[in-house]
C-alpha cells in the first residue's frame, strides 16, 4: 500500500473521534476500502473531498449519539473526576511548582484576555437593554450601503415617519446638547442634556420617582421651560430634597422649572441625567436632509416584528426617495436594534473582521493552553510507567484520562480564577474611566456578569481538555502499549511536529514583538519618571466651548455673527482674567503641551519623504507663559496674527531642526504639509526655533518630539484649551473663580476638565504606564512560555537519550560533544524561530514606515534575537547539564 492511497489524515482523526469505539474499526475500514476503490479511477483531490464529505456526514450522525453517551456516563458518575482525583491534582501541582507557576500564569493571562474580550464584546455588541421589553425598542435611521449612519438630519423624515409609521409606536427623537448649569453660587458647570420628545419616556416605560415626565404639550414652541432630572443629579446637587419639584435652575441663558425626578439607573436615551423637551422652532424649514441632527427611536407595536416594521418603512422610504433630492437617494431607511446606531454595530456584526477578531481572541487561549500542554506532556511521558502499571492493575483508559484531566483542571481552574480577577480589575478600571467621562451608555454593564464567569469556566474546561486530555490520550494510546512492553526501561515518546512548530512560532513572535514593546514601554516609563517640564503648581487648565442655540436657517451672515459673538466672548474672558489678581497670564492652545496633532511635513528644496511631525496651535503668549527659551529667531508677534492663516509663519523646536531640516540655520526656510489628494498645502516660513518643550516628553506611540507650532489668535476658535498661569494662588482654589468669571462673561461659555496642569499630566503619564504594564504582561508571558517550552523540549530530549548518552560517555566521548549534540536540536529550533522573528520584525517595521522601532530597529532587533537565544540556551542548559551527569552504568542498568 502506498502513502498516496491513505485517506486524509485529519479526516481520519475526526472520524475516529466521532465514531463510538465498537463501530470505529469497521467504519474506518469501510471508508478506507471505498477510498482505495475510488482512487483507482478518480483523482486524489476529488477522492479526498469525497472522503471528507463522508466523514462529516458520519460525524453529524454520530455526534448526538456520542453526546448522549457522555451525558449518561456523567449522570452515572463514571467519568466524573472524583475528589481524590482533584486532591491528587493539587499534590502534583505542589510537586512541580515551576510548571504550576509558568503554566498557571500563562493560562491566567490567556483566560483574562479571552474572558475580558468576551465581556466587552457582549456588553457592546449584544447588550440587553435593561428596560421593560427592552428588546422591542428600535432605532430608525438612514444608512448608506455599508450600514454606517450617513445622515442624521432626519427632521423631515421624522415628521413623516411619526405620521405614517404604524408598526412602530411612540416614535420619538432626541439630540444631545451641552449647556451651562448655573448653580446657586452662580458658578457655571457644563452639563449634558437630552433634548427629547415626550414619547421617549413612554418608549422607555419608566415612570418618574417624583413629579412627572415630559408631556407632549412641553414640546410646543413658546411653552414654559421645564426640565426633568435624574436620580444621581437629584442626590448630588439637591441633596435628595423631596421638594425639588417646582424649583428653578438656569440652563444656558434660560431658567427652567424642575417638573420631575427619574428613578435611579434611568439614563435613557444613552447616558443622560437631564431631559428637556425637543422643540422645533416653527420657522425651521422642514425639508429633506436639513435641520438638526436627530436620533429617532420607537417601540415595535404589539403585533409588529422588526421585519414587518421594516417593510412598512420601506414603502414610505421609496415614496420619499422618489420625491426627495438625488444626493440622498442612495440612503437606505432601516429599522435596527436600538443600541446599534450608537456603536455602529450593524456594520461590525456583519463584517468578517469582527468574526475573525472573536476567533483570534478565543484562539489565543488555545495557543497558550497548547503551550502548557507541551509542558504537561513532557511530564506525563515521564509518568508513562506509572500509567502502564495502573493499566496493568485494571484501570481503564477512561479512568486514567479522567485523572489526568482532573490534574489539569486544577491548574486551569486556578488560572481561570486568577484570570477572572484580572478581568474584574480591568473592567472596574474601565467602568471608573467611563464614569469619570460620564458617557457610558446605560445598557453597558461592565461588571463581571454571570455569562463571563461561565465563559471563563468553559475556558478552564477547554484549557484542561487541551492540557490534560490531549497528552493523556497520547500517553495512554499506542505509547502505552509500548510502555507496557518495556516496563522499567523508560518509555520513548516523541514530541510531535505540531509542538515543535509551536515553539518555533513562539520564539519568532517573541523576537518580533519584544523590540517595539520594549521601546514603547521604555518611552512611557521614561516619560513617567521625567519631570513634567513646566513649573509645578502654577498652571490651571480648562477646555472651553462657546455653545450656540440651534441656528434656524443659518445663513452666512448668521454664521459670521455667531463667530463674532464667540470671539467677543473669548476676548472678554481673557481681558477679565488679565485683571484678576494672582493671574500672571493666560494662553489659548489647540491642546495640552504634550499632545497635539501629527502630520507629515516636507521641506522646500529637500527631496526627502515627509516626516510625521507633532503640530500645535498656540497664541502669542504661549512661549512666554511657559518660559520656553528661543534658540534662534523670534517668538510670534501680534502682527503675525493679522495675516490670513495660510500665510502665517511657524516656529519649530530643536529636534525638528535636526531631524527634518538636517541641522543648520532654520530661520527663513519654508516647510509645508504633504499634499492631501489634489490639494497642495501652502508653504510656511520658519521664524523661530525654540527648545524642546515639555523637555523631551513624547506622546505615547510618537516616534519623536519634533514639533511645529502654528499661530492662532484668541477667538478664532469657539472651542480650545485655556491655560492660566497663577502666582500666589493654587490652581485648585482658582478653579471656581474661573468658572464664575466664565459664567458672568457668557452663560453659553462652557468649561470642562478644569484642573491643574500637573494633575492632567499625571493622568496622562499614568495612562501610558498602564499601557506599558499591559504590553509588558503580554510580552512577558510570551517570553516565559517560549523559554518554558524550550526547557521542556530539552529535558524531554535528555530523558529520551539517557541510554545513548550513557553509552557515549562510557565510550569516552567528551562532555563538550555530548552537550553540543543535546543542545543542537534546541539550538536549531531557536535559530529557526529567531530567523522568522527577525524577518517579521523587519517586515512590520517596513509596513509601519520605519516608525515602529523609531529607526533604531536595526540595532534593537538583533539584540532581541541575541537575548532570545541566550534565554533559550539558559532554559536549555539545566536539562542539558543533567544529561551530562548521566552515569553510563546507571543508564545501562535501567535497560
Amino acid at each position: 500500500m502506498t502513502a498516496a492511497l491513505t485517506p486524509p489524515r485529519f479526516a481520519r482523526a475526526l472520524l475516529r473521534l466521532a465514531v463510538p469505539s465498537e463501530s470505529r474499526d469497521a467504519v474506518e475500514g469501510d471508508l478506507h476500502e471505498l477510498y482505495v476503490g475510488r482512487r483507482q479511477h478518480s483523482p486524489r483531490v476529488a477522492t479526498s473531498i469525497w472522503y471528507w464529505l463522508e466523514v462529516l456526514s458520519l460525524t453529524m450522525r454520530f455526534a448526538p449519539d456520542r453526546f448522549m453517551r457522555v451525558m449518561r456516563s456523567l449522570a452515572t458518575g463514571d467519568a466524573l473526576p472524583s475528589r481524590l482525583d482533584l486532591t491528587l491534582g493539587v499534590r502534583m501541582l505542589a510537586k512541580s511548582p515551576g510548571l504550576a507557576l509558568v503554566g498557571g500564569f500563562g493560562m491566567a493571562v490567556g483566560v483574562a484576555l479571552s474572558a475580558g474580550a468576551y465581556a466587552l464584546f457582549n456588553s457592546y455588541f449584544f447588550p440587553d437593554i435593561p428596560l421593560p421589553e427592552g428588546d422591542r425598542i428600535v432605532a430608525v435611521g438612514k444608512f448608506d450601503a455599508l450600514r454606517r449612519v450617513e445622515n442624521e438630519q432626519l427632521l423631515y423624515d421624522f415628521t413623516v415617519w411619526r405620521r405614517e409609521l404604524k408598526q412602530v409606536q411612540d416614535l420619538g427623537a432626541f439630540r444631545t446638547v451641552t449647556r451651562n448649569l448655573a448653580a446657586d453660587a452662580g458658578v457655571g458647570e457644563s452639563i449634558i442634556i437630552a433634548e427629547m420628545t415626550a414619547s421617549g419616556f413612554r418608549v422607555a416605560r419608566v415612570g418618574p420617582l417624583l413629579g412627572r415626565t415630559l408631556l407632549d404639550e412641553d414640546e410646543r414652541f413658546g411653552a414654559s421651560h421645564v426640565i426633568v432630572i435624574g436620580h444621581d443629579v437629584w442626590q448630588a446637587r439637591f441633596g435628595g430634597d423631596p421638594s425639588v419639584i417646582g424649583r428653578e435652575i438656569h440652563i444656558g441663558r434660560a431658567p427652567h422649572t424642575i417638573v420631575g425626578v427619574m428613578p435611579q439607573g434611568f439614563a435613557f436615551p444613552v447616558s443622560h441625567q437631564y431631559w428637556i423637551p425637543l422643540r422645533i422652532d416653527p420657522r425651521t424649514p422642514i425639508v429633506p436632509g436639513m435641520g438638526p441632527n436627530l436620533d429617532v427611536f420607537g417601540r415595535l407595536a404589539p403585533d409588529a416584528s422588526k421585519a414587518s416594521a421594516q417593510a412598512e418603512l420601506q414603502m414610505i422610504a421609496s415614496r420619499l426617495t422618489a420625491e426627495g433630492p438625488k444626493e440622498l437617494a442612495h440612503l437606505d431607511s432601516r429599522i435596527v436594534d436600538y443600541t446599534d446606531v450608537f456603536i455602529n454595530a450593524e456594520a461590525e456584526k456583519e463584517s468578517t473582521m469582527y468574526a475573525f477578531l472573536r476567533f483570534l481572541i478565543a484562539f489565543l487561549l488555545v495557543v497558550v493552553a497548547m503551550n502548557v500542554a507541551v509542558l504537561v506532556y513532557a511530564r506525563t511521558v515521564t509518568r508513562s510507567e506509572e500509567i502502564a502499571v495502573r493499566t496493568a492493575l485494571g484501570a481503564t483508559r477512561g479512568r486514567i484520562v479522567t485523572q489526568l484531566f482532573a490534574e489539569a483542571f486544577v491548574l486551569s481552574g486556578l488560572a481561570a480564577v486568577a484570570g477572572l480577577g484580572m478581568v474584574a480589575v480591568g473592567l472596574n478600571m474601565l467602568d471608573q474611566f467611563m464614569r469619570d467621562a460620564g458617557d457610558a451608555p446605560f445598557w453597558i454593564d461592565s461588571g463581571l456578569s454571570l455569562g463571563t464567569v461561565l465563559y471563563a469556566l468553559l475556558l478552564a474546561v477547554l484549557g484542561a481538555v487541551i492540557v490534560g486530555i490531549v497528552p493523556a490520550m497520547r500517553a495512554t494510546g499506542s505509547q502505552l502499549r509500548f510502555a507496557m512492553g518495556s516496563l522499567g526501561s523508560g518509555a520513548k515518546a516523541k514530541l510531535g511536529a505540531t509542538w515543535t512548530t509551536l515553539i518555533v512560532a513562539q520564539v519568532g513572535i517573541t523576537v518580533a514583538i519584544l523590540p517595539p514593546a520594549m521601546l514603547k514601554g521604555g518611552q512611557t516609563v521614561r516619560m513617567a519618571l521625567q519631570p513634567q517640564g513646566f513649573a509645578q503648581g502654577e498652571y490651571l487648565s480648562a477646555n472651553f466651548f462657546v455653545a450656540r442655540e440651534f441656528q434656524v436657517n443659518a445663513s452666512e451672515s448668521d454664521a459670521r455673527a455667531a463667530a463674532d459673538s464667540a470671539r467677543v466672548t473669548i476676548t472678554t474672558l481673557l481681558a477679565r482674567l488679565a485683571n484678576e489678581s494672582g493671574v500672571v497670564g493666560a494662553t489659548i492652545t489647540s491642546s495640552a503641551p504634550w499632545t497635539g496633532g501629527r502630520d507629515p511635513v516636507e521641506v522646500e528644496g529637500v527631496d526627502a519623504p515627509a516626516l510625521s511631525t507633532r503640530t500645535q496651535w498656540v497664541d502669542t503668549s504661549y512661549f512666554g507663559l511657559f518660559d520656553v527659551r528661543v534658540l534662534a529667531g523670534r517668538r510670534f508677534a501680534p502682527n503675525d496674527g493679522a495675516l490670513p492663516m495660510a500665510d502665517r509663519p511657524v516656529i519649530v523646536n530643536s529636534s525638528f531642526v535636526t531631524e527634518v531640516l538636517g541641522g543648520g540655520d532654520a530661520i527663513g526656510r519654508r516647510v509645508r504639509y504633504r499634499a492631501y489628494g489634489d490639494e497642495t498645502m501652502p508653504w510656511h516660513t520658519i521664524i523661530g526655533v525654540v527648545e524642546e518643550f515639555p523637555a523631551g516628553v513624547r506622546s505615547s506611540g510618537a516616534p519623536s518630539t519634533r514639533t511645529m507650532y502654528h499661530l492662532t489668535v484668541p477667538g478664532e476658535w469657539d472651542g480650545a484649551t485655556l491655560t492660566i498661569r497663577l502666582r500666589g494662588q493654587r490652581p485648585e482654589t482658582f478653579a471656581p473663580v474661573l468658572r464664575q468669571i466664565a459664567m458672568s462673561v457668557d452663560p453659553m461659555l462652557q468649561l470642562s476638565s478644569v484642573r491643574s496642569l500637573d494633575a492632567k499630566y499625571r493622568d496622562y503619564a499614568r495612562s501610558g504606564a498602564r499601557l506599558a504594564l499591559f504590553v509588558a504582561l503580554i510580552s512577558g508571558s510570551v517570553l516565559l512560555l517560549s523559554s518554558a517550552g524550550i526547557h521542556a523540549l530539552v529535558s524531554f530530549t535528555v530523558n529520551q537519550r539517557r541510554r545513548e548518552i550513557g553509552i557515549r560517555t562510557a565510550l569516552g566521548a567528551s562532555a563538550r560533544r555530548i552537550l553540543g549534540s543535546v543542545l543542537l536540536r534546541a539550538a536549531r529550533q531557536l535559530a529557526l524561530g529567531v530567523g522568522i522573528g527577525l524577518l517579521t520584525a523587519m517586515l512590520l517595521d517596513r509596513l509601519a514606515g520605519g516608525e515602529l522601532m523609531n529607526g533604531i530597529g536595526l540595532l534593537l532587533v538583533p539584540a532581541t534575537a541575541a537575548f532570545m537565544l541566550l534565554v533559550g540556551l539558559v532554559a536549555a542548559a539545566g536539562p542539558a547539564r543533567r544529561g551530562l551527569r548521566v552515569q553510563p552504568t546507571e543508564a545501562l542498568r535501567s535497560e
Partner: protein
Amino acid sequence: MTARGLGEFEQLVLLAIAHLQKDAYGIPIVEEIERRTGRSVARAAVYITLRRLEEKGFVSSWMSEPIAERGGKGRRYAKLEAEGVKALRDARRAAERMWRGLDPASLRVK
C-alpha cells in the same frame, strides 16, 4: 413501534443482510439497499441501525482478519439471528393483515 418491533429502515437492513448472506458488512449492505430501493442511504444510519439490531439480538457480528486495503482494519460481518428472522416474519405478517381487503392500485387520496 415497540422495543421488539421493527422500524422500516431496520427491516431494510435485515432484508439486505438476508440477501447478502455471508457477504453482509457495511459497504455491501448500503449498496444492496440503494440498489433495491433506488433511494440513497446515509452510511451512518446503517451503522447505527446495525448496532441497534445487535443490541436487540436480531443480528450478531464478528470482525474478520485485518485487510491491507482497508488500512489494516477488519470487516465487521453481520449475520441474521433467529430473533431477527422472527421479527421480519412478524412485520411481514402484520403488513399483510393491514393490506387485506385493500387493492394497492385503487388507493386514492380523498
